């Protein structure tokens, strides 16, 4: 079970690094947003993985089970998912407006166009 634990942390860290890399390195506005959502998703694992108990079950109380995974992280992550998608929707709306105003969604091209306009 310890290997499982270490593995889950390893995956979490890997996803986080990959997501963050996309966010910082990429020029394309939409891809940056995708990277951001991967980065956020990795956090879900950080919270949820430690909440599981071996032999436990989902936290819906019934007479058949006596071990449940911890419900509180689930609640927090539900909220985090919603916040994530809300941010994504807003980000995309801004991207659409940027595209209409500039005709591109590449960050450096946008900066160039602003410089030319000056």
């Amino acid at each position, binding site marked *: 079970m310890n290997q499982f634990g270490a593995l889950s942390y390893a995956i979490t860290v890997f996803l986080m690094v990959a997501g963050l890399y996309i966010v910082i390195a990429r020029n394309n506005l939409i891809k940056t947003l995708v990277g951001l959502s991967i980065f956020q998703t990795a956090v879900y694992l950080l919270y949820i993985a430690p909440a599981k108990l071996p032999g436990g079950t*989902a936290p*819906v109380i019934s007479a058949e089970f006596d071990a449940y995974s911890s419900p509180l992280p689930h609640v927090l992550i*539900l909220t985090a998912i*919603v916040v994530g998608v809300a941010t994504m*929707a807003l980000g995309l*709306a801004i991207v*659409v407006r940027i595209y209409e105003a500039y005709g591109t969604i590449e960050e450096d091209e946008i900066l160039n166009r602003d410089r030319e306009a000056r």
Partner: protein
Amino acid sequence: MSDDLILRVVTKILIPFIVLFALYVQFHGEYGPGGGFQAGVVAAAAFVLYGLVNGLDALRRVAPESVVETMVGAGVLLYIAVGLAGIVLGGHYLDYSVLGGAPVDGQHRGIFWVELGVGITVSGVMLKVFYLFAGRRA
């Protein structure tokens, strides 16, 4: 898109079931997984499907944009109001125990209305966002 007869028939059959499923998820969330948020998403999906098949104008007749915008605000308002009801009835903010005779009844009632508020706002927002993105193309 709307010319395909099979597509129209299939969606016509499908949509009531999706709505039914949304209602199930909304009101059964206390016993199984689910709740207002998921139900809102599913319910909005039903309308989005209708809009995709029958066109945006047909959808506007079923769910006028102004109604949808009202839903966006109404859900949040409902949630906040349930909280304030707790204060009015002599408890704390969002204290559902004072909403019914026995504390557990109050909790039930509170959770029911709160989840409903979530469902209304979420489906409203999803639908509104769909309108805006889809309407932008025209």
